[in-house]
């Protein structure tokens, strides 16, 4: 290390220790709180393409850090969330986002559970209404009660 660099580092150290200049030293400084939130949301939604199953925010892989940097740059250039996601999909395929792009095939991923839920709730409604009019019999029928008593004696 040459002397100049050393001096710089030394003064830097002193300066740093006296000033709390809160977020000057961030890896990814944002002026705007909104941008920061979008950055966090995007890096959580993007999947690290090299890792087993981790998002870009949490992964230590070099490629994840490249993607984080690119997201940061694009955000500061004023790109929209969609543009940023598309930018990554163009390079790393749809695999890179945890939220699949809506399409005919993906539609069913949302429709099927909803349909099952509706069918289930409709079943409860029908089953209960149908029996409402019928005179309600007693709890367990007698034969069963007897058997139960016998078994649990």
């Amino acid at each position, binding site marked *: *290390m040459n002397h100049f660099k050393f001096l710089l*580092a030394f003064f*830097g*150290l002193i300066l*740093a*220790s006296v000033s*709390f200049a*809160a*977020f000057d*030293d*961030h*890896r*990814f400084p944002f002026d705007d709180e909104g941008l920061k939130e979008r950055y*966090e949301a995007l890096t*959580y*939604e993007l*999947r690290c393409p090299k890792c*087993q*199953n*981790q*998002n870009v*925010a*949490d992964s*230590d892989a070099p490629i994840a850090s490249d993607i984080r940097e690119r997201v940061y740059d694009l955000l500061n250039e004023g790109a929209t969330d969609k543009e940023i996601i598309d930018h990554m999909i163009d390079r790393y*395929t*749809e*695999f*890179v*986002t*945890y*939220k*699949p792009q809506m399409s005919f*095939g*993906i539609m069913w*991923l949302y429709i*099927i*559970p909803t349909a*099952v*839920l509706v069918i*289930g*709730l409709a*079943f*409860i*409604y029908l*089953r*209960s*209404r149908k*029996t*409402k009019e019928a005179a*309600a*019999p007693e*709890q*367990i*029928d007698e034969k*069963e009660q007897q*058997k*139960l008593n016998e*078994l*649990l*004696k």
Partner: protein
Amino acid sequence: MIAELGFVALLLAMALSVLQSFFPMIGVVNKNLWLMQTGRPLTLGVFVMLTIGFLCLGYSHAVDDFTVAYVANHSNSELPMQYKISSIWGGHEGSMYLWIYILSGWALAVSIFSKSLPRENLATILAVMGMVTLGFLLFLILTSNPFERILPIPPEDGRDLNPLLQDIGLILHPPMLYMGYVGFSVAFVFAISALISGNLDSAWARWSRPWTNIAWVFMTLGIALGSWWAYYELGWGGWWFWDPVENASFMPWLMGTALIHSLAVTEKRGMFKSWTVLLAIFTFSFSLLGTFLVRSGVLTSVHAFAADPERGYFILALLALTIGGSLTLFAIKAPGLRSRASFTLFSRESFLLINNVLLSVSCFMVLLGTLYPLIFDALGLRKISVGPPFFDFFFTKLMAVLILALAIGPLLKWKKNEYKTLKKFAAIGAVASIALGFIAMYWYGNGEINFAVWLGLSLCFWLGFGILKAFKDNTRNAKSFMGGLKKLAPSFYGMQFAHFGMIITTVGVVMVSNYETEEDIRMAVGEAVQYDEYEFRFEGAYPVIGPNYSAMRGEMLVFRDDEKVVRLSPEKRNYNASGQIMTEADIDAGLMKDLYVSMGEELNSNGDWSVRIHIKPFVRWIWLGTIFMSIGAVLAILDRRYRKTIKVKN
């Protein structure tokens, strides 16, 4: 020699389990009492043999016998003793052994504690248990023998246990989880034997309930432990990621939760029998599915074991036999199980059904999301990832509705309830919850409006009111409130405890997901930064030497209002044997918030580091709630009606 002894024990266990699968069953068919009674000693025999084998495996690990391939691949001579032992279940073969060992333990427990069961039932139950044990023992012996030797030239030292797993969390997490997974086998065989005999009555439900609850408690604690472990060990403060393997454990949990509630209806009212049987089958099936997903390598996950197609085929065949066979049995027998009992829309039955529908749909949704990328792959479509955005989307909504119904359900009578009895409570409760939710959100968020938090906290208050109202209703006829409390049954306390746990966990999830903050900060030695209400002062990073790793340990002092709060020492470890780098976070745990610090990278030769600071409000509540739920499930089975059956046995 010891490893060979272990293998012989394993073979004997298999031989005995063959007998256990057939003798009692033949006895039932031929009405041969002697054959029926072989079930219990044979179950004991299998357990004893597996214990011997397990001790042999443990011994090989403890003395670093690297001629045993499994030990060489998963242990290392430098490893501290507790991790040498826990490395028994650090890989595929050993963890499969543990799985089977626990299964045989459950079978033994059934044979000991269910003496009061009718002979035929017990014989069938033990035989079915024997078949499941046999299937998995075959799998272990034929494809995954943990006693296999590396001869003639064994390695000098072992490859080491994955550093992620060198932790107290791993010592406890898999055995707990397996106790749960495998424990659901009891409810499963009870259901199968009931289907075979055709006696699906309230007695069957009553026998199943304690076993199901206990398995559920293990499962709950196992999942919570796993989540807690991921939180502090993976170094990025996540506690749930909807990873395929997490989902694999969550699905049987959701089904098991539904089963617990459905069994209540079947026991008390003799209803929903076929549905309850189906749930019992599905709960264990999802346990098996989890085992398959982790071991076949068909899905990409952080937790998966090394893939081996041969093993995949074998387990798939086992699953097909077990699940396919039992569902076919169900399809044949279930149509005869129509129940005549009736109920109205506003009754406890229908609210328990709502619970079942919501939990089953949640489970189905998780299954679909987990398999969807695979379906796309199989159809030759695009590569996709289905992750947190999808699962959160559905799960939060389903749980919100569940909590909404959960406050009301326990207040309702069976069969039929008048709307007007709850009108006042519902109106006042709703308004009060929304108001209190708003106040809490407004106060904690310093005046910031966050609708998700508002909704979440309101639901928690709503459920809280429901619990209070349940206590009020149930002590109404007593002379005094305290006197009334004493008279309440343990099962009532159990239910309320578990539901209270639900509040705690929900508060944790809502708060941490909405208010957690994190920051990557570049820090020089001696530098201090203000973050949240704290000042973090970095004193530098120093090398430290651990038993089987070397590390850089950062020293971070945390102040609030110029008063020292805590010193945190996160590490960046490099494990000697594998060369793997691990981030050891350091956490100042608190009931209201965690301060979580982990080391990033060293940035230059001056000792500057990138450091990640997380603030995680209420994160502990997530796991605290599961403890309440577990206590609740245990309390519920202390009820007299179950104790009576146990006493008779002894």
